[in-house]
C-alpha cells in the first residue's frame, strides 16, 4: 500500500501495540483493516466489545435487541447507570465510540433469525458469540460455518465459563461437534434463575477478545481444537480437546443440515429468554 501505515493519532493511540513483539505495526494494521461482529452487548459482549474497540478493530458491529436493566449493571460493564431503560445497542455504540472515536462502530438492534442472519453477518471477518440461549448459538454456529467465518465461542453459568474458537472449513470442529444436542428445557437455568458471578463474563469475554485479536493478526495459538474450562470459585483452568465429528450434520463429511433453521423447536425453548 502507498502512504504511511498510520496517521499520527493512530501512532499515539496504538503505540503500546506497535512496539510490542507479535503485534507491531503489521499486526495493528491488520486490526484496523478488520471487522468483528459481537453478538450480544451483555455480560460477555461488554468486555469483548470494550477491548476490541480499544485495540482498534476497524469496524465493530454489535447485535442486541434488549434494553438496559439495573440488574445488568452488576456485570455488563459496557453500560452505566444513566443507560437504564435505553436500548443496549444504543448504549453500547455510544460507550464504544467514547473509548475509540476513530473506528467504525455499528449497532444492529435486532433479534437474529434464519431470515436475517446472513444479512447481519455480511461484511464481518470474525463473529464473537456472546449470546445467552441455545437456539441462537446453534443458528450463529451454522451461519458462521456456511459463510466461512471463524466463530469465537464463550459461555457462562454461575461460576463456570467455557471458551473456544470454531474455524470454518474442512475437518475442523464446529459447535455441533462439541454439543450435538442441547439439554432438555428446564435442566439448565438461565442467568436470571440461577444467578451469575458478575466478574465471570469479564474473564471469559476478555479471553474471547484475545482470541479474536489473534485470529486477525495470525500470531500465537488460538483455542481452535481446545475447550477452555474456567471455574472462578476454585480458580481452576482446564482444557479438553474438541475433535471434528465426521458425522456432524453441519460440518461433517456428509452434512444433512445445509440451510439455516430456527432452532426453537430443536431446543424446546424460546429463542430469547
Amino acid at each position, binding site marked *: 500500500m502507498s502512504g504511511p501505515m498510520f496517521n499520527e493519532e493512530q501512532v499515539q493511540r496504538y503505540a503500546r501495540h506497535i512496539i510490542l513483539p507479535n503485534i507491531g505495526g503489521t499486526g495493528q494494521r491488520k486490526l484496523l483493516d478488520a471487522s468483528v461482529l459481537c453478538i450480544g452487548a451483555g455480560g460477555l459482549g461488554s468486555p469483548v466489545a470494550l477491548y476490541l474497540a480499544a485495540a482498534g478493530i476497524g469496524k465493530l458491529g454489535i447485535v442486541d435487541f434488549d434494553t438496559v436493566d439495573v440488574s445488568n449493571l452488576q456485570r455488563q460493564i459496557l453500560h452505566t447507570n444513566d443507560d437504564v431503560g435505553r436500548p443496549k445497542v444504543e448504549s453500547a455504540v455510544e460507550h464504544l465510540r467514547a473509548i475509540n472515536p476513530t473506528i467504525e462502530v455499528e449497532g444492529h438492534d435486532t433479534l437474529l433469525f434464519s431470515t436475517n442472519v446472513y444479512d447481519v453477518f455480511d461484511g464481518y471477518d470474525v463473529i464473537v458469540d456472546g449470546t445467552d440461549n441455545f437456539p441462537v448459538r446453534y443458528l450463529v454456529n451454522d451461519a458462521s460455518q456456511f459463510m466461512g467465518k471463524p466463530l469465537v465461542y464463550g459461555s457462562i453459568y454461575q461460576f463456570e465459563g467455557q471458551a473456544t474458537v470454531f474455524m470454518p472449513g474442512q475437518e475442523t470442529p464446529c459447535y455441533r461437534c462439541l454439543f450435538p444436542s442441547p439439554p432438555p428445557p428446564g*435442566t439448565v437455568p438461565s442467568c436470571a434463575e440461577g444467578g451469575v458471578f458478575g466478574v465471570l463474563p469479564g474473564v471469559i469475554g476478555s479471553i474471547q477478545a484475545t482470541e479474536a485479536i489473534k485470529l486477525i493478526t495470525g500470531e500465537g495459538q488460538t483455542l481452535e481444537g481446545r475447550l477452555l474450562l474456567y471455574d472462578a470459585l476454585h480458580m481452576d483452568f482446564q482444557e479438553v480437546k474438541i475433535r471434528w465429528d465426521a458425522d456432524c450434520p453441519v460440518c461433517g463429511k456428509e452434512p444433512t443440515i445445509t440451510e439455516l433453521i430456527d432452532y426453537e423447536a430443536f431446543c424446546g425453548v424460546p429463542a430469547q429468554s
Partner: protein
Amino acid sequence: MAVTVKLPTILRKHAGGEAKVGADGATLRDVLGDLEAKYPGITKNVIAEDGGLHRFINVYVNDEDVRYLGSLETEVTEGDTVSILPAVAGGC
C-alpha cells in the same frame, strides 16, 4: 482404579456442593455407577434410560471426549480425571 471426578455446577448439589469427588471403577460405566451409589440421583442427567450417555452431556477422561474413546466402556487408570460437562448457554 481410584479416579477424580470433576462435577459441573448443576450436579454439585447431589454431592453436598463438592466440585471434585473420588470414585472407583475400571471403566467409566463403573465409575459413574460408583458415583451414583455414593450420591443417588447424580447420574440421572448423565446416563440415559437406554443405558448410554445422554447426547447433551460430554464426559472427558483427562482431556479426551469419551465419545471418541469407548464411551461408557472407556477404561480408566489410577489417577485419571473424569470431567462431566454439560452445555451451558449463558452470556448475559
